[in-house]
């Protein structure tokens, strides 16, 4: 299948995180990855797992079966989608009874899950299929002037049993990918903690305090930006940073960038090309530094 993937956008990205999609597509094209669109789409199923595990299994299996028909592996930008599709693929391959039950549902739409493809998140693809060396050699404008921090989020790391390409307690992939751009990736307290996004709508109080914790830890090490690889984590920080600043009477001023935006800058792309204008927290300060540093 080479470097050709079926891109699975998920729901959150087309809903309100287009900068992630725009920058990821640009960066992947430069790295020689060919993307094919899903012929038909439905949610991966994760948002409905809390209320109906069966619904989640069917929705995920339907997407896997569609991808199998195309004979292509799936690439996702959302860790939630990646985790769900990986987990369901594994469960259905191992559990024959469950597979038959789910296939009974898929049959109604003329589909069948066979378990012939795999799913990868952008991060895993960059690490395993492209490789750090190729990414480093694509850098034309090393971002040596930047000191940033990373936020992996939960679903790219946990549960380890199903995701398992990085260490959930001390993840290294995103750090290495950030450093490949020339930027420094700083360590900070509780790096692997949850951003709080899944609690929004159920308890905003809990969600905002978790995000505030993270932002204050990132601020503590003077990171100039926080780098994310998840649409939900990005929404949580980028959309709520000003609200959190007001609520706790604190100032952070930390721009939240999608990883491909950072990599794109290092590849020589312009902030306009990488949709920096879509970010809520002003990133002009670091963009100015990048611009000046390159002169």
């Amino acid at each position, binding site marked *: 299948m080479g470097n050709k993937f079926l891109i699975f956008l998920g*729901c959150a990205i087309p809903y309100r995180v287009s900068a992630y999609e725009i920058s990821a597509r640009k960066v992947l094209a430069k790295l020689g990855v060919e993307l094919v*669109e899903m012929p038909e789409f439905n*949610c991966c199923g994760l*948002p409905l797992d809390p209320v*109906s595990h069966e619904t989640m299994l069917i929705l995920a299996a339907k997407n896997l079966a569609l991808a199998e028909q195309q004979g292509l592996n799936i690439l996702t930008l959302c860790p939630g989608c990646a985790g769900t599709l990986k987990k369901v693929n594994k469960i259905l391959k191992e559990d024959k009874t469950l597979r038959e039950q789910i296939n009974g*549902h898929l049959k109604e739409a003329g589909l069948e899950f066979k378990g012939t493809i795999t799913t990868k998140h952008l991060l895993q693809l960059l690490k395993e299929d492209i490789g750090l060396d190729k990414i480093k050699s694509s850098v034309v404008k090393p971002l040596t002037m930047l000191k940033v921090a990373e936020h992996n989020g939960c679903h790219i790391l946990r549960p*380890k049993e199903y995701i398992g390409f990085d260490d959930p307690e001390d993840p290294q992939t995103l750090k290495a990918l950030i450093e490949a751009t020339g930027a420094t990736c700083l360590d900070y307290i509780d790096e692997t903690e*949850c951003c709080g996004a899944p*609690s929004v709508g159920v308890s905003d*109080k809990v969600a905002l305090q978790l995000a505030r914790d993270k932002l204050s830890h990132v601020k503590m090490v003077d990171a100039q930006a926080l780098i994310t690889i998840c649409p939900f984590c990005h929404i949580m920080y980028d959309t709520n940073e000003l609200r959190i600043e007001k609520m706790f009477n604190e100032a952070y001023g930390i721009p939240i960038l999608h990883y491909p935006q950072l990599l794109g800058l290092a590849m020589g792309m312009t902030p306009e090309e990488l949709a920096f204008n879509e970010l809520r927290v002003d990133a002009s300060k670091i963009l100015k530094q990048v611009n000046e540093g390159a002169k």
Partner: protein
Amino acid sequence: MLPKVSIMTETAASKEPIKSSEIDPKFKYELSKMHGSEKILKCFQCGTCTSDCPVARYSDTYRPRTLIHMAQLGLKNRVLNSDTLWLCAACFTCTDRCPQDVEVASVIRVLRNLAAEKGCVPLVFKEQANSVLESGYAYKIPELRIKKRETQGLPPLPKGNPENIRKTLKGVKFIANLEKKGEQHGQ
């Protein structure tokens, strides 16, 4: 110290004294046969889940250990009616760190599924389920966003196939209940 912020009031699982009549002694065995909660009997209440839970840090009521304990004790209605059940962020920290490999987050998911079957579901999940049934997407993506894709240099958004989605979800209890209620509201 963190300033106290109160946006939503959390209702704790009832602290009323337990009556023997509300105990379902077979509940834990039922759970141990369900997909995701097979290992509930292995929990020895060490509290690792609660001490590592990011939500428990800021919630006055959400304690995964307590929810598992209530289920083990057979306090079925109490645990299924509890608002706190819905606070889990599904970060899976408890699952990865549980020394007994109980898969705590999965047990909580099973409990939520059972609560949902009884009709105890926060509104947000019903909205997302309806949106998936109507469009394939969990959120209603504004027309403007879909049109804007072209000017952003993005390919057209893949379309959902509501007919196929409904066909494959035929016979799923949660979806059937949702549609039944939808019809009633429509009348």
